């Protein structure tokens, strides 16, 4: 056994992929450094209302993972941290990590006095910009580590209202960024994805019409912790929509936008249609699609939704979404009928795809033509989750488990 065998595995990203990879390796006996750019863990799934096809909340699975994380002494979690540089060394990598100042120390009890005192409101990043929060706030109700975060860029110059309000002395406005250098055996890249920006779809009303939202925003609208407390209301006037339209392949499978299929948006829209229908039983729901892509056993889910009263599936990609008489008009050819329809809706959900977050990694990874990280066993880097390929949560968990095994093999030595 040589002296490099006890180097930890570096996992970049603590979303569902990174958490899984880190836990699998740590529970096998390896040391892991888990790095997350946000001040909290859980990534995209923490914001979702329900998983398909079981329609259960992601929070419960996440809670189990967080408990495993808390108990495991082999995982060192670094939130608010980014990989700043990496250099290949014999049997691994030498990496530089920079940790942004959090300004809220571990004395924080999440009491909320600081939020009450804070004078600045900002659009809520966790709610996809819908609704507002104070500049110092708790990211979301179940956020972990259970500490408040500060959007320091939004603060007023010289303001220290939060520090004055905190009776535990948990606010350190003088905190500074720190940097550390580490040697690691291998790297798991689980940096996840960003939703394709609505603003790039103006012909579908994206970024132009307030009642045209993304599928990810829909998750927040329906979530009990979201901007409306879980009531599905249209953003323009706060009224419950009577007609909801889902536009599939909005900026996906499209050489002008994302050339690939994200593979989850059909199922996500089917799921969202079901919970909209459950909350608003009178609503008319239509899903406009090119193809209904529900691979494997998810075919049953499709059949279930297609057979639900009040939900229509129309074959045809929507070409235009326009404002019309206080509502929205969708122009689409009903391919099966061979006629062009001018359909009305109060709320339009664009099923936008997933953009891999691998562009600015300071690692010599190769990307495919769509920006996903390619497998390269010789590189000492293993991709996991959506940054590897577009996939739904269950696949991400399997992918991350496999990635963890490969990362352990690459790091060498024995657990």
């Amino acid at each position, binding site marked *: 056994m040589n002296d490099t065998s006890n180097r930890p595995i570096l996992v970049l990203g603590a979303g569902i992929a990174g958490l899984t990879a880190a836990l699998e390796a740590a529970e096998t006996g390896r040391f892991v450094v888990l790095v997350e750019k946000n001040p909290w863990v859980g990534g995209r799934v923490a914001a979702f209302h329900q998983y398909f096809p079981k329609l259960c909340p992601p929070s419960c699975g996440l809670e189990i993972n967080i408990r495993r994380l808390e108990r495991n002494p082999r995982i060192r979690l670094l939130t608010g941290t980014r990989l700043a540089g990496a250099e290949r060394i014999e049997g691994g990598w030498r990496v530089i990590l920079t940790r942004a100042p959090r300004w809220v120390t571990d004395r924080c009890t999440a009491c909320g006095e600081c939020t009450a005192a804070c004078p600045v409101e900002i659009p809520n990043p966790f709610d996809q910009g819908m609704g507002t929060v104070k500049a110092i706030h708790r990211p979301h109700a179940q956020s972990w580590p259970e500490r408040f975060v500060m959007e320091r860029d939004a603060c007023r110059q010289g303001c220290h209202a939060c520090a004055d309000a905190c009776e535990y002395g948990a606010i350190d406005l003088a905190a500074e960024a720190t940097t550390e250098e580490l040697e690691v055996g291998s790297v798991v890249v689980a940096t996840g994805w960003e939703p394709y920006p609505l603003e790039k779809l103006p012909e579908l009303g994206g970024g132009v019409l307030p009642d045209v939202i993304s599928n990810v925003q829909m998750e927040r609208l329906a979530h009990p912790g979201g901007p409306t407390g879980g009531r599905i209301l249209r953003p323009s006037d706060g009224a419950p929509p009577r007609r909801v339209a889902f536009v599939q392949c909005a900026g996906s*499978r499209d*050489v002008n936008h994302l050339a690939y299929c994200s593979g989850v948006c059909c199922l996500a829209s089917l799921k969202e249609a079901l919970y909209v229908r459950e909350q608003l039983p009178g609503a008319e729901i239509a899903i406009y699609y090119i193809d209904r892509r529900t691979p494997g056993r998810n075919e049953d889910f499709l059949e279930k939704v297609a057979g639900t009263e009040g939900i229509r599936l129309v074959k*045809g990609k929507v070409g235009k979404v326009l404002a019309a008489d206080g509502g929205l008009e969708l*122009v689409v*050819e009903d391919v099966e009928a*061979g006629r062009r329809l001018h359909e009305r809706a109060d709320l339009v959900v664009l099923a936008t795809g997933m953009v891999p977050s691998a562009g600015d990694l300071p690692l010599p990874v190769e990307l495919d033509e769509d920006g996903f990280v390619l497998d390269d066993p010789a590189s000492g880097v293993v991709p996991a989750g959506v940054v590897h390929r577009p996939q739904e949560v269950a696949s991400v968990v399997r992918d991350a488990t496999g990635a963890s095994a490969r990362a352990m093999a690459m790091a060498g030595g024995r657990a």
Partner: protein
Amino acid sequence: MATVPLIAPSEELREELRARGGTSAARCFQCATCSAVCDLAPDGRPFPRREMLMAQWGLADQLMADPAVWLCHQCNDCTARCPRDARPGDVLQVVRSLVIERLAFPRSLGRFVANVRTTWPVLLGAPLLLWVLLLGLTGHLGVPAHLVSWEEVVPHWMIYSVFFPVTLLVMAAAGVSARRFWVLLGSTGPPRKGSLPVALGAVAAELVTHRRFGCCETARPRRWGHLALVWGFVGAAVTSGLLIVALYGFHMELPLPLTHPFKILGNLSAVALLVGTAILVVERLKDPDRVGRTTAFDTFFLVVVALVVLTGTLVEVARLTLPAAVGLPMYVVHLSLVLTLFATFPYSKFAHMLYRTLALAHERMTRENDQPPDPTD
């Protein structure tokens, strides 16, 4: 059990489309974005998604008989939005050239002009040769020392003896094609109602401003270029007609002063033709990925039109300012280009005038009641 196939795919058609540059049709995955965004397509019979499928499958009979092929003005709103870069606008442009060739009478001439990439020297050279031969045989090659009028070299009778028979032949050939096309259009789809002359009148009224062309967003300037060109041609034709009547009905003396109403009309037409041609040429030279690709078939027609307009204008300027030794050869070149334009009418892109007009009339006669108002009304 049925013994006849429901569809008869033509591998030949697919090959021909490929050869003409319609290769992108194969990329279409039938999402129908094109049919949704086309402002020219009627809601009851949207296009061009169905036409893309016909092109992919090689459904020649269906494509030939489809009025939608001609309702398209190649503005390329569909191409700009197509998620597969299947370029429906360009595919339909290629299909139109195929219709012109297949319905041509005689078909061999249709093929000859369709093959313009190799046959263009003949199409441009033969008429020039004809003029030179005619002038040579009648002893008119060369400029006399004391020339009063250009008519001494190129007499009007010679012009009439070429253009009248050619025009008659061309009209007869175009008539056969028109008849074939009209029968094909009526062979599928809803039955026609009303009379053709009434429908043609409505189409003519629509063409006055090219309102339908105005629905296009991606290649918007093309509307104005085409409109100027059409009006320029109408003006030039009216001027020519008036002149012939005046010359032989009222023994008018030539040349006319520049202030004469006929002259003013003619010159205004020339300006419209020049402006229109310039716009269309510039539009064609723009980013072809956006505004549409140009095939040899398109280029030939546009180049001939541009050369006719350009030499025509230069001849007028030359007649006023340059010696006859320079102006006369230019005049002969102009006459030969006009002959190319006329003689290829039923076989070149020029024939779109015939086919699109008939298709627009057919569309008016088959329009469904439940359709929303046409953008042109």
